[in-house]
């Protein structure tokens, strides 16, 4: 797969085929009739297809939200499953329109890969999972341990940093995909498995005996995860960015998929702006003015997406924590729609 993509990049870059993809992504998407999203093929709660091929997850719903904003139909999406190390190449080469695949926003990625983040839809941090039998209570006790890690992520670098800065020895086993890394941990090849804590919660469930394993308390890195697009197309960047802000604003204003029709009748000036009965905010993005209505009807607001996919009532059981709205002590904050 990676070879095919790399070859495609070389071929496409060589003959200038990509140039069409970098400008006017929105026009391309409208012409295609669907949004093509780079997706995570196997992280429950964020992106995973079920047996029937229906995708579910927080990142997946973000892709649907974009489709709802453009087409008023959240099903006009196509998911391209990508491994960690293929994802940026796939975006840069124009294979996908937007990459929403729990990708960490870092400086070097934004300055050298030709991509740009549109926001943070999940604040995360890297952690460790170990077998309870080892009786390890803290990551600081992992000196001398063997650690399984997936290739091609910031995880590999944080892992090396953590052990270097704590002056501890360790052995690393680097595998191609998260499934392979988890499998190696599950069969006892490693003492610990490391990835983002959201991923740990999801991965633990797919192990042969989830209850035998425990996630250690330490968070060893900042992992702001979010959707990203190619550089050089500000219209498309704005669209993806404001779909994210619209989801947050909807939660803040109490607009849900159930009460959106009622809210449309409201005289509140903020609600009128957000729901498009006043102003031309949607049009300025190249969309209909009812764009937020379409998004919320299609997938709900940020809270609904969170609760549905990773919240306390799902098997993943993540608390809002840093991902609560700023007004509730979290980090999620949207600039005003005005």
């Amino acid at each position, binding site marked *: 797969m990676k070879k095919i993509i790399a070859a495609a990049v070389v071929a496409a870059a060589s003959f200038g085929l990509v140039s069409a993809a970098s400008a006017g992504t929105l026009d391309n998407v409208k012409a295609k009739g669907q949004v093509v999203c780079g997706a995570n093929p196997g992280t429950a709660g964020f992106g995973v297809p079920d047996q029937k091929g229906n995708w579910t997850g927080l990142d997946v719903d973000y892709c649907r939200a974009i489709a709802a904003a453009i087409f008023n139909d959240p099903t006009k999406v196509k998911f391209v499953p990508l491994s960690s190390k293929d994802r940026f190449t796939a975006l840069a080469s124009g294979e996908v329109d937007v990459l929403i695949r729990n990708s960490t926003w870092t400086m070097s990625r934004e300055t050298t890969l030709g991509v740009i983040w549109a926001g943070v839809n999940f604040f995360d941090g890297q952690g460790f999972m170990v077998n309870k039998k080892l009786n390890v209570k803290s990551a600081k006790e992992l000196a001398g341990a063997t650690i*399984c890690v997936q290739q091609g992520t910031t995880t590999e670098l944080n892992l090396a940093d953590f052990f270097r800065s704590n002056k501890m020895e360790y*052995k690393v086993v*680097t595998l191609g995909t998260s499934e392979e890394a988890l499998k190696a941990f599950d069969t006892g090849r490693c003492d610990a498995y490391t990835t983002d804590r959201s991923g740990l919660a999801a991965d633990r469930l797919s192990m042969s005996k989830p209850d035998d394993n425990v996630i250690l308390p330490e968070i060893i890195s900042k992992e702001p995860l979010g959707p990203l697009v190619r550089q050089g197309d500000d219209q498309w960047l704005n669209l993806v960015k404001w779909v994210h802000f619209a989801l947050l604003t909807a939660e803040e204003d109490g607009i849900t998929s159930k009460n959106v029709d009622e809210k449309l009748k409201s005289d509140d000036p903020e609600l009128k702006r957000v729901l498009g009965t006043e102003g031309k905010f949607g049009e300025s993005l190249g969309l209909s003015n009812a764009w937020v209505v379409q998004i919320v009807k299609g997938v709900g607001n940020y809270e609904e997406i969170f609760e549905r996919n990773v919240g306390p009532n799902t098997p993943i059981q993540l608390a809002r924590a840093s991902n609560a709205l700023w007004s509730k002590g979290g980090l999620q904050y949207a600039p005003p729609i005005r």
Partner: protein
Amino acid sequence: MSVVNGGRPSEAKVVFYNDPRIRSLFFQLVLLALIVALFWFAYDNTVANLKKRNIAQGFGFWNVEAGFDISQTLISYSAASSYGRAFWVGLLNTLLVSGVSIVLATFLGVLIGILRLSKNWLIAKLATVYVEIFRNVPLLLILYFWYRGVLGLLPEPRNSIIFPGHILLNTRGLLMPRPVLGDDFTYPFIAFVLMVLIAIGLSVRAKRVQERTGMRPKTGWLSFGLIVLVPSVIFILLGAPLSFDIPVQGRFNASGGMSLAPEFVSMVIGLTTYTAAFIAENVRAGILAISKGQTEAAQSLGLSHAQTIRLVIMPQALRVIVPLLNSEYLSLTKNSSLGVSIGYPDLVSVFTGTVLNQTGQAVEMVSVTMLVYLTLSLLTSGFMNWFNRRVALVER
């Protein structure tokens, strides 16, 4: 003109553009120019497009700190080493796993190829079953089989299987005492090399004597004594300058000693068993290509079955086998790039995998990696062609 035409009287002058030689030269130059222009266009366009897309390019990353660790390193490497260093670590790991597997696959393949032609029905059928299974199952599945199915079933480190001599076997691999050489160890080693050279000399002389008189002087025991006893005596006289670093069970893994990681072992077993099936077929083809008359002639001279194969059949069969082996070796080396799926840090895993992802420079990484495999393949081919000329039928 007249000379070219074989000294015949010069023919009627043709206009230069009707001269077939000038024409063919002209069109070849045009073709060459087109190809060069195409490559230049591709290169220039790539650079321009990458620049437009704000994607970093060039080899500036080579000396930048890599920041990640690698599980198996033949040269010293840490997270503080450079990307360039990581490249060499990956390349050496590829060479190691390919080299070891090529040697083992050759032995196993030749053995199975010969067994497949055995007169013993059971042995021949078992060899056939082996070939059919390993040749028809995808290599990736064979690697998973050995890594997860076989080596994954070993006990965890706390319940290691312990062999005499401080050897531990568990899911983390095979841990053995690591010999620590003393300063004086050089002397027995030099003695060993010298004695091997002397033994080779003895064997060469024995061969000459055999060619002259038909009788081969017995050199086996003498050579054995020289190679084993002389260095041993020197070693003991120097007070045995050798100690062992023994693996000690720690909280997680045993530390100290040396270990064979399951990733490496799975790669070697997987590549060996898979490629051996193909080599076995090549060997069988080579042997069957030798006419039955050769076997009958050898038997009528009183040679045993083993001697017939070793002295008569194989030297001739090699001429058929060697060119075929060449392509098996090339496939094996290229197949080693599947290592990442079972965690073996080969060139593709380290360089085209992790380094590519950290730097995002796909064009540079893929080009360098392709160049490396091309070079390895050409070197292997070059060696095999040389070897092929050596084993070719010597006309007397």
